[in-house]
């Protein structure tokens, strides 16, 4: 297990990032419905930007989503920083 740690960090971070950014499965399956029950940030951003054409709101959602993903990516960033 301790020897696997570098790989585990990469795999877990990647999976977490991937699922935070999830868009296509939700969009195709439910479009965020019923009544926003399966809404995710990526869908919300798409609706604001390309359905309502309200770029301001969409940008806010996008920045929020980015904050979350960057926080999730910190372990990976740290391990790259330590290595080089």
């Amino acid at each position, binding site marked *: 297990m301790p020897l696997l740690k570098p790989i585990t960090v*990469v795999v877990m971070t*990647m999976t977490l990032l991937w699922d935070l950014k999830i868009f296509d499965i939700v969009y195709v399956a439910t479009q965020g419905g019923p009544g926003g029950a399966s809404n995710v940030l990526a869908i919300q951003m798409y609706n604001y930007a390309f359905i309502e054409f309200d770029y301001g709101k969409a940008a806010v959602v996008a920045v929020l*989503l980015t904050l979350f993903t960057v926080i999730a990516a910190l372990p990976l960033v740290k391990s790259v920083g330590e290595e080089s």
Partner: protein
Amino acid sequence: MRRRFWISVIGWVFGLAWLIPFMGVFMTAIRPMDELLSGWWNFEEFHPTLKNFAQAWNHPTAPLSRGIPNSLIVAISATVLPLIIATMAGYYLARYRFPFKKTLLVLIVITLALPLQMVAIPLYEMLLKMNLLDSYIGLVLLHTAWGTPWITFFMRNFFTTLPHEIEEAARIDGAGDIRIFFSIALPLALPAIGSAAALQFTWVWSSFFLELITIYTPEKFLATQRIPLMRGVYHVDWGVLSAAAIMVMMVPIGVYLILQKYYVRGMIGWSMK
């Protein structure tokens, strides 16, 4: 001994549970609609048919016969372009010293974390101004830009695991930087290139968001965009949907099978020493 038995039992249960959705899609695709109403797991009547596949291929509103070639054009160009750029960039990052190298690496890793939604609006505006909306050139450029950072990171990790000695020997024999890269480093990196190509191809092939915001004309729709269109408004023909999903899935699976030899050996690109 008993412990090992239970561990393998747990492994099998998880593995089979993971296969159930694929079984479902496959069974739904090969059975006619009236048999599916009681569920694909109901085998009282079983008449396998290929009708659903033919229907998805020649669908009246979203035929896959045009979607798959379109997807192939985009996916192949958006795999080759970033690989060319990123292999060179990764080699440079692994072998040379230059100011702000660490900052650049950290920046690359941060771009791995960025969601596409973050850049969607500016990209859309840029493509609009450059007249590249609704064209494959724009889409391929987007995918290239989006794929280059992770492939660079991947190739750089792979090159750091290669021994320096061969390259040093070549340098003593008088080879220049470019010669060393093309005649020595590049052939050694083939496994990593194969595995990055398989991943990038699959990623571009199954990507949906960029297509959704950049391609409008129905004839230009890619394969992934066509599957949701096959779902009717009043009635969902699951058989056709599943058949389409399987046909679209076959292409990346084929790519993996072709590149399998490289794929496993190249995975070392994800590791960090």
